[in-house]
């Protein structure tokens, strides 16, 4: 993974020192809260319902074991002994003290981490596919370009006060696991007719109040032009994005209002002035960064070793876990293992300090010291020998990290909601916990098959509910918590926004409603049909009928 050189280390240390000064000026009163707020947001520090929340950047979701251990240490020393992984591959601490944050940032800097631009109206964490560098269907490792974009976007003097936040995702595989179609800019690595690798550029995707699927404005962008093209898009957005209304300030609104063709023309016209200029990416820099993502020192192994098959036969619980939580690796004899952070009845995405340390140790032992964070709030060990999977699973079990539910109904994506978040209208975590408990039976989960439930506590959609097969949005109706359900969303290649099924459900009724939806699906589906396929075939009517039968 990427290792800082002296410039990177200097920048992070200087930024931490700068923030220390800003905190001191706030505490002394030299800065008002109004002046301080954008500054602390640019360092990922929110003021939430009960406490500050610090969002730490995990660039493109890749962590070293050393970094994960440091996060555990910070959790213990400065927080309440746990952290929360988010849908943008970041980590959140919920209880830091303001005066401790500079010290936390200094600690993070010692392991090449930071909280720069994890909030604020600037370019945020550039995410990638959690199987990068390991998946068989990869054109090129997207993290190389996520890192290049991360650096270019860090403390960019022109783009630090955008109309609104800006999110970029990069995918390198034929199958999009980075949800590029619902980002402000999505980049897809692909080959053109001549076999050259470049980027398809999508803009204007996003969730929140007005969910939109992104549109392609350039089919193929050669690599040297990556940064100059992004600069052209950002400059166009910075100048033309709305400044009068926070809720209409994202680039998706601008693209929609301008029309995608006109928007493309504006970008290309700006780009025509700056392409081939100072921002042209030298091959030497791409190569330098790519070298950091060189494959680990794999052993020469044969695929599907007999020990692995034997372990599955011997141990049905392990076999069940392997069915969902293990995915093929591009190297024979290796596998990609998902560590579920969704134990039955647990808080989705939460991890204790002990668990972090355990995962760090397992990463050292079984996966070259590297851990990945997914968009779906799970962790991944990307390079595990198939022969080691059983031992890994047993170790995970001891930590409560071996729930075999990856992609199943209890693998719920859920924002912190009104239990933590200042913006929320309703709680989300208790709903996730109750659904998880209702569907605890693993056999039943397998019978249902792949099903993504995504829950958001407000319209900002941090739980990505729009792109859940079943999406749940918490709303406030006359001071009470209600839950609106959407069906048929998807964040993968056939990205789609879910459709509202009908009136919202009370907190008391929502779990039963989910159960009714599942039962209806099972009753309607043909052999092997996914939830979305069944829904596409039969429409919403059967679901509405069952859900609102009594009305």
């Amino acid at each position, binding site marked *: 993974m990427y290792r800082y050189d002296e410039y990177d280390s200097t920048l992070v240390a200087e930024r931490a020192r700068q923030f220390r000064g800003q905190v001191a000026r706030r505490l*002394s009163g030299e800065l008002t809260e109004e002046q301080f707020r954008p500054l602390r947001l640019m360092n990922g520090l929110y003021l*939430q319902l009960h406490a500050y929340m610090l969002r730490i950047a995990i660039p493109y979701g890749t962590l070293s074991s050393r970094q994960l251990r440091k996060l555990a240490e910070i959790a213990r*020393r400065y927080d309440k002994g746990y952290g929360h992984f988010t849908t943008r591959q970041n980590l959140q601490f919920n209880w830091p*003290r303001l005066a401790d944050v500079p010290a936390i940032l200094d600690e993070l800097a010692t392991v090449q981490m930071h909280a720069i631009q994890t909030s604020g109206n600037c370019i945020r964490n550039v995410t990638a596919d959690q199987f990068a560098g390991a998946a068989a269907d990869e054109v090129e490792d997207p993290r190389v370009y996520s890192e290049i974009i991360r650096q270019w976007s860090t403390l960019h003097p022109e783009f630090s006060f955008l109309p609104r936040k800006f999110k970029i995702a990069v995918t390198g595989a034929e199958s999009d696991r980075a949800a590029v179609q619902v980002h402000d800019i999505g980049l897809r690595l692909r080959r053109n007719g001549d076999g050259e690798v470049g980027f398809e550029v999508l803009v204007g995707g996003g969730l929140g109040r007005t969910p939109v699927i992104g549109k392609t404005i350039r089919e193929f962008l050669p690599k040297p032009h990556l940064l100059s093209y992004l600069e052209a898009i950002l400059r166009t957005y910075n100048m033309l994005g709305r400044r009068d209304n926070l809720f209409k300030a994202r680039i998706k609104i601008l693209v929609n209002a301008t029309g995608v063709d006109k928007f493309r023309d504006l970008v290309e016209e700006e780009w025509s002035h700056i392409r081939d200029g100072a921002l042209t990416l030298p091959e030497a820099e791409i190569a330098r960064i790519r070298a950091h993502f060189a494959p680990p020192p794999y052993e020469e192994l044969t695929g599907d070793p007999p020990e692995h098959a034997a372990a599955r036969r011997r141990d049905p619980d392990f076999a069940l876990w392997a069915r969902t939580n293990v995915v093929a690796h591009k190297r024979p004899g290796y596998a990609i293992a998902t560590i579920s952070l969704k134990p039955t009845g647990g808080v989705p995405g939460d991890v204790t300090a002990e668990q972090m340390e355990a995962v760090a140790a397992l990463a050292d032992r079984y996966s070259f010291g590297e851990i990945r964070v997914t968009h779906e709030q799970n962790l991944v060990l990307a390079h595990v020998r198939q022969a080691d999977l059983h031992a890994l699973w047993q170790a995970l079990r001891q930590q409560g990290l071996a729930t075999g539910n990856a992609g199943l109904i209890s693998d719920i994506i859920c924002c912190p909601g009104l*239990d933590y978040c200042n913006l929320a209208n309703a709680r989300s975590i208790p709903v996730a916990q109750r659904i998880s408990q209702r569907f605890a039976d693993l056999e039943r989960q397998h019978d249902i098959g792949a099903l993504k439930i995504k829950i958001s506590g407000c319209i900002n959609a941090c739980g990505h509910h729009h792109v859940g097969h079943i999406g749940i949005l918490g709303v406030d109706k006359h001071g009470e918590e209600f839950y609106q359900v959407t069906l048929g969303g998807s964040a993968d290649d056939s990205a789609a926004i879910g459709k509202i099924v009908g009136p919202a459900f009370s907190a008391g009724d929502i779990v039963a409603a989910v159960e009714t939806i599942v039962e209806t699906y099972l009753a309607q589906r043909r052999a092997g049909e996914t939830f979305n396929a069944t829904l596409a075939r039969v429409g919403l009517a059967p679901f509405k009928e069952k859900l609102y039968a009594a009305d």
Partner: protein
Amino acid sequence: MKARIVTANRLSDGAVVYLDAAGDWVDSIVEAGVAEDGETAEALLAVATTAEQALRVVGPYLTDVAVEDGRPRPLGTREIIRAAGPTVAGAAIREGDERDDAKEASAA
């Protein structure tokens, strides 16, 4: 009109605090100073919104309460959760004792 109190977040740690009748900030809603009429409410808010207070708290505002046995009770899900803390037990809602222990240990 409903009875009201003033609440804010403490600058130092973001904790939920309430303004008591003496003009000090307290952790517990039952000790909050209650305003029964509009004028008192505005006066209470004015106490909370000075530049000096900006060094102690962030974002003070008035919120409605119910009064039972002379003690204020929060109204609405949001204020109930603010008063009580997260309603979820999960990956550890330990009341800061681990953090304090670690700090003591490192100070020793």
